[in-house]
């Protein structure tokens, strides 16, 4: 099964540059030859004030407030590098809700 990098493309995240971030992650994934990853838009994780939000699944890593400068570290994680702890700021109850949803295959 492909691993998935979901990048929120709803209004708040978009206003903060999530379109650019999604393109950048895609580019890095291609450059690194991460063929087992699919980079996909998502409609809303419910953490709009903390966006742009990026969720790696099935890793269940949630990166919030992602800036272009963070993309290299995220792509590094996708390629087997360490997770990006500084971007892991989301409340655990919201994480649990969203991860359960993703577990059902909603993406």
């Amino acid at each position, binding site marked *: 099964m492909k691993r998935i990098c979901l990048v929120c493309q*709803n*209004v*708040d995240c978009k206003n903060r540059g999530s379109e650019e971030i999604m393109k950048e992650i895609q580019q890095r994934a291609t450059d690194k030859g991460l063929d087992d990853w699919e980079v996909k838009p998502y*409609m*809303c994780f*419910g953490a*709009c004030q903390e966006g742009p939000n990026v969720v790696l699944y099935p890793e269940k890593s949630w990166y919030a407030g992602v800036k272009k400068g963070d993309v290299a570290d995220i792509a590094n994680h996708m390629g087997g590098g360490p997770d990006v702890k500084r971007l892991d700021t989301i409340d655990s109850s919201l994480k649990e809700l969203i991860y359960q*949803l993703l577990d059902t*295959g909603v993406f």
Partner: protein
Amino acid sequence: MEGILFPRGVAEGREGLDAYRARGGYQALDKALKQLFPREVLQEIDASGLRGRGGAGFPTGKKWAFTADTPETPRYIILNGGEDEPGSKKDRVLMESVPHLILEGIILAAYAVGASKAYLYINAAYKDAIESMEQALAEAKKLGYVGERISGKDFGLEVLFAPAPHEYVAGEDTAVIEVIEGKKPLPRQKPPFPATAGLYGKPTAVNNVETLANVAPIILRGSEWYRGIGTAESPGTMVFSLDDQVNRPGVYELPFGTPLRYLIEDCGGGTRDGKKIKAVLPGGPSSAFLTGDQLDVALDHNSVRAAGSSIGCGVIGIFTEGRCIVEETLKIAEFFAAESCGQCPACRMETNTLAMLLKKIQQGQGSAPMLEQFGKVIAFNKGKGFCSLINMPGPPIESAVKLFRSDFEAHLAGKCPGN
């Protein structure tokens, strides 16, 4: 039966000033201005138990008391005729049919709360309703019921029109206020409630059209008479909207407590396709489904709540055998996702996620664990928005999954049970 709002319980064309006066029109206003202090008018409405007809069922007397008791002036009355609930046509029909009854209610409301200005906020698509109210206003002005020093009293009222955008959320009371202030229809965070800080920050009573139409009859005939109609906690009548799923669609005024079956069979003439009823939404798309076995429920706030649903603004949705409840529920979820104004993140996430889950299930891409997610998403977001829209998709969706699980299971297996 004899109606309170429609003399014969159904609309029969526009009632002109003479016909209205012939059945006691403007006598309530004359009585109030001659014999009653504003506080006594308010107390009479409070004693009548009148509840708002826009959906929430909040006691009108309480709303008015909060407005009247806020010392700031000027105070405002707003007639909320935004009416964008799918299937609802009662406010439109009331404005087109009995404009003077509504106008007299507005003037009495203004007198009761000490308001000097009233706005008639009417769905801009309702041309006939606007024209009807304009005509009534012109006639009332000629009689001296609108303007300065009404009936020689130290009470004046200016009445203005405000077009309502054709959007669901534009009927929410704080969104109504935003629109009249010239802004977009975005609900405000509450509190403060409009009664204390509403239009231009001043005390404002925002009342539904049908609610205000009940005011003059109560003042004229008394709260005790009013309480003799309907039930103890839902006094009076309600105007129900029936769509073309029945043989005689339209609006029907019935006392609260009338069985749902009477409305559908006797008033509506039964289902158009002649099929057995599978499900009913008794209070529009934000109410929980009832099953076809619950048609004997009495249509009043308490009875419908005890049956697991809500009466809302009286829009009855009927689904006969052969209709798929997954398809119907998806339409509702997509409606709320589209109508969410988007300013509250939780509402945006919730309405979109619910619609997405249902879409997956409807398309045969669902999984059994998906059925367990609805309740979790709804519970997580409950009450997290500025307005109540965030709480609206919950009842229909959760009741659909609970009561019509076999329809969902059929979709999980890749087959729609509808035909």
